[in-house]
């Protein structure tokens, strides 16, 4: 009886509606990317590859994204650990604090950062009297990008730490492991998959960051212009060159994705 029910359901028109919708979604997600490659003007490639705009932006983007991910690991891991070890209520509150920058429009994040660290903002003024400049330079880019990408890292790692079997840490402690050794040999290896996923998500977000960086830090070639900003500027005068830059940036992201695919989509446990 069950078999009849199943087969009649699979033949129902609803099934085709679902299939058609799914197909549309797949096309919607892939066609623009294919178009990007299809529109690629190969003659432009050599010229763009040799341009100083690309060089400056690529190097800055790499430094900024690596710096932002490093800061996320350094400051995000302890926070993720703390969230995972709190009682449910505190955990929910801390999670909210992390999620807000994630759902905020990046331009708004940029304005928010300016209102804190800008030249005329309270903290920014204090830093300026100390001779520390945190806008319109690489430090500003790193701050803006970290603000936007760190939450992705924290949430991924926190999920991993929360699902870790705490009894393994208990077992290590009964075997004489100090809290530091337990962290190093149980907690961190046990959340390795989540940490890798967090790194990939944060890095992908960092390399593409646009709104907050531009708002907070400006768009000066060789000083504050990261790849996405360079693409926007190039696009206004030279669409073909912008296209080439876009494909290069996309290629870099896909490469990272391929390197981490086992950690992201495979059996993370």
């Amino acid at each position, binding site marked *: 009886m069950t078999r009849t029910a199943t087969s009649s359901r699979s033949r129902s028109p609803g099934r085709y509606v679902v299939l058609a919708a799914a197909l549309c979604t797949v096309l919607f997600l892939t066609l623009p990317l294919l178009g990007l490659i299809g529109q690629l003007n190969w003659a432009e490639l050599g010229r763009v590859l040799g341009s100083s705009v690309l060089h400056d932006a690529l190097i800055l983007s790499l430094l900024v994204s690596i710096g932002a991910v490093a800061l996320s690991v350094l400051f995000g891991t302890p926070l993720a650990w703390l969230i995972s070890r709190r009682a449910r209520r505190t955990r929910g509150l801390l999670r909210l604090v992390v999620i807000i920058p994630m759902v905020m429009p990046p331009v708004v994040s940029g304005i928010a950062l300016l209102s804190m660290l800008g030249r005329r903002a309270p903290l920014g003024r204090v830093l300026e009297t100390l001779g520390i400049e945190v806008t319109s330079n690489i430090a500003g880019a790193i701050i803006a990008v970290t603000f936007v990408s760190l939450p992705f890292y924290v949430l991924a790692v926190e999920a991993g730490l929360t699902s870790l079997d705490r009894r*393994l840490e*208990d*077992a290590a*402690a*009964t*075997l*004489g*492991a100090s809290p530091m050794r337990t962290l190093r040999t149980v907690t961190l*290896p046990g959340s390795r998959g989540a940490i890798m996923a967090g790194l990939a998500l944060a890095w992908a977000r960092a390399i593409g960051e646009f709104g907050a960086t531009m708002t907070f830090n400006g768009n000066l070639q060789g000083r504050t212009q990261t790849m996405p900003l360079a693409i926007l500027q190039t696009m206004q005068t030279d669409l073909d060159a912008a296209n080439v830059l876009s494909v290069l940036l996309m290629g870099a992201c896909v490469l990272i994705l391929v390197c981490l695919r086992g950690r992201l989509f495979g059996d993370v446990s």
Partner: protein
Amino acid sequence: MSAGLHARLRAPMGEGRLDVELSVAGGQTAVLLGPNGAGKSTLVRALAGLVDIDEGRIVLDGREVTHAPPQERHVAVQFQSNLLLPWLSVLENVAYGRRSRGEPASDARESARRWLERLDVADLAGRSPKTLSGGQARRVSLARALAAGGDLLILDEPTTSLDIDARVDARRVIAEVIREVAAPRLIVTHDPVEALSFADELYIMEAGRVVQSGDPASIRARPRSEYAASLVGVNLIKGHLGRQGDRWKVDTPGEPLWVADVDLPPGTAVLARIHPRSIILSSEPLRTSARNVLAGRIASIAIDQDRARILLATTPGLTVEVTTNAIASLGLEQGLEVWASFKATDIEVYPR
């Protein structure tokens, strides 16, 4: 307060409270027996330092460790679910305890290798814990606890979750290796057979409390609760397997028990189990086909509705279950000499 474990623990547990007093001397095995939910796990966690107690004292080998963190207690635990670290090899898991205590890696691995050999699983050293069978994982986690050493060894349900064959095997291995442990040993189980075969001292736990404690023989003679009685409801006799001609027997401190053919070498340390209902009681020696006939006086009679449990001062001692009608018709009373007959095929023999 001498060497060994002396503990009085009071802690919240589930909906009730844990309230237990325990004393185990070095080289002795205490078995904590109780149904699920009796508080056995809470007790293990409290002794290991994984939950704090709100009242009481834990003294281990003369050191007060009542509120010491787990890593400072030196309590080695074989956990019910093994809890091997899946990202380390079997060898590194077993070496983990000694490395945590600052021993050089090579020494710790050397000792780990010896324990794996001792437990016949040296060939698993390079394997990942994820690839082990249930029985193998038990042996490895036992090796890990033994290699870590310490002032108290706890085995939490050491044979639960194993199939019958692996369980018999695990029991034999445990009985063998824990003899070498000089520290007090605590085995937690809900399996009466396991409890009776390991215990020097038995603690029966119900609802967070110890309802009876003592050596297994005294608990068997006078169970003080229904639970305890049902736990020791079987006759379990320790002995060694022997042969006389083509007949098999179990040599006990008293009379030998004739048993059916056994697939074990003579000399094996075994347990013989006889159900009280399989034993026929008579007021004079009977000529029957039953191979075992033991004479002795009635030590006690306990009546429960229409059944009676009669304890016989035979050697070995036996519990016999009869109907209350039989008591009347045979005129059974304390001190009367009776004969207990039972068939060789009614005795279950297995290694201990």
